[in-house]
């Protein structure tokens, strides 16, 4: 039995979610092959070969794969599965993984299992449904199990210590159906939201984008990432890639500080597995207090600067 894990990477850096996905593959058991698809992968393949638990790194280099366009990635992955007979294909449940993986499953004519949080056995997995309000245990009888992995459900494997062999594979040709035009990436010095140990999030209560400075100052003291509720994103306070929730990012940090966030079902879906939750809200009836370990009923505009000073 061999498992194909599709690596997530950008700008020559292996994304942390890849290490969590390899951890999920280890729970299933079997040889683990890590697929690197993209451009200029020479340095990255050396990094990938050191990941603990990986037996082989497959490198597919082509300009057609540069931005992981699903029209080009999916035939590549489906071809590798048919060629090498993998029992499982795993990818992180990132926006990239969510984009190409169902396309792979359809090409292989199998159901896909989304965002697993636990491996029960090689064919049985747990995944949240209804915005995390229920956990389904699902069993697959498919010849190939195509699975996306919620990275917060698995502890990352070590990035060092492995010694995988590296093998080039024939990259698929450009399907000619889609083209990359451009990208607008948010720049930030703070840790990545999904991997941060501490997350400070703001909601509608922040009132405007300028006031998020209060949270940035607090986050910088804590070495934290800054997140937001949908209300804050929709109101234009902050960009959408900061959104935490059912339709945004799923985080499970050591400490989650929710500031001016009421705690709608959709927001809780993205953060309720955090180890410690702190809520700062002036409405003491806000649902966020039902999940918060420590709640402070106070005006955030005085409490947040005070908190920053106290640290």
């Amino acid at each position, binding site marked *: 039995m061999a498992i194909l894990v599709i690596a997530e990477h950008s700008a020559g850096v292996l994304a942390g979610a890849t290490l969590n996905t390899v951890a999920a593959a280890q729970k299933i058991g079997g040889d683990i092959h890590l697929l690197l698809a993209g451009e200029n992968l020479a340095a990255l393949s050396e990094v990938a070969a050191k990941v603990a638990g990986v037996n082989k790194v497959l490198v597919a280099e082509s300009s057609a794969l540069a931005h992981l366009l699903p029209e080009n990635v999916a035939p590549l992955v489906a071809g590798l599965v048919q060629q090498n007979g993998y029992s499982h294909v795993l990818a992180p449940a990132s926006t990239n993984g969510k984009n190409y993986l169902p396309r*792979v499953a359809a090409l292989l004519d199998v159901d896909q299992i989304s965002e697993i949080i636990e491996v029960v056995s090689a064919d049985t997995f747990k995944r949240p449904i209804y915005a995390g309000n229920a956990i389904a245990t699902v069993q697959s009888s498919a010849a190939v199990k195509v699975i996306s992995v919620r990275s917060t459900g698995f502890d990352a494997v070590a990035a060092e210590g492995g010694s995988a062999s590296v093998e080039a594979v024939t990259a698929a040709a450009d399907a000619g159906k889609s083209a990359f035009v451009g990208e607008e990436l948010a720049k930030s010095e703070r840790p990545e939201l999904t991997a941060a140990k501490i997350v400070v999030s703001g909601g509608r209560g922040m009132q405007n984008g300028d006031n998020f400075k209060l949270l940035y100052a607090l986050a910088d003291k804590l070495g934290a990432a800054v997140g937001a509720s949908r209300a804050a994103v929709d109101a234009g306070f902050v960009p959408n890639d900061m959104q935490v929730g059912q339709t945004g990012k799923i985080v499970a940090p050591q400490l989650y500080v929710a500031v001016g966030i009421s705690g709608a079902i959709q927001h809780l879906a993205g953060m309720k597995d955090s180890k*410690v939750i702190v809520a700062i809200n002036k409405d003491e009836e806000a649902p966020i207090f039902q999940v918060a370990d*420590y709640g402070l009923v106070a005006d955030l505009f005085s409490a947040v600067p005070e908190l920053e000073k106290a640290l």
Partner: protein
Amino acid sequence: MKVLVAVKRVVDYNVKVRVKADNSAVDLANVKMAMNPFCEIAIEEAVRLKEKGIASEIIAVSVGPAAAQEQLRTALALGADRAILVESSADLNSLAVAKLLKAVVDKEQPSLIILGKQAIDSDNNQTGQMLAALCGYAQGTFASKVEVAGEKLKVTREIDGGLQTVELALPAVVTTDLRLNEPRYASLPNIMKAKKKPLETLTPDSLGVSVASTLQTLKVEAPPVRQAGIKVKSVEELVEKLKNEAKVI
């Protein structure tokens, strides 16, 4: 161009669902149902394309129980021209739905197919991508902006680091993110008019599609309950607790 929009009947997004006592499923008896929020955005986008003179006809399609007619009527009231229900009482997986939609696409030959990026019940985020694969079309998932330029479609997508723009050959499949648009409300006259719009009913058998699945749900459980914690009186107390009790800072 002809636009096909897929909509799903799901539990209303404000409902706090409960798991059945026998752990077989989520209890949907007497629970308020509605159109999936992402599907509303898909309909709205199609209607806006029609208002701009780009779309000529909007067909709303749903795969589900007979009761999904309600959601199709809603889609008609919002501006769809006609509707198709592929009736199946079974709990279908995304691949089966994608195969049924593919059969409808083969019949109707739309230039653009718009779906929501995910249904808020199964949270799968698969159907649009699978449909694109089955049809051999390009896909623009998690779209926050859609522009038609001749034979091409320019889609701005929400990705983990920010935004990405891709250009797709038509016909193509687009799945909507929340920020694509703000759906309108159906007015009473439009709801009345929608009752007269055509709604065709098909079955998986009549489309010649097998909905067999390799996936079986063994159990549905409630997630671990988080205990409500304590309320602190001051910022000092909060910092003290985080340092000494929770030891997280």
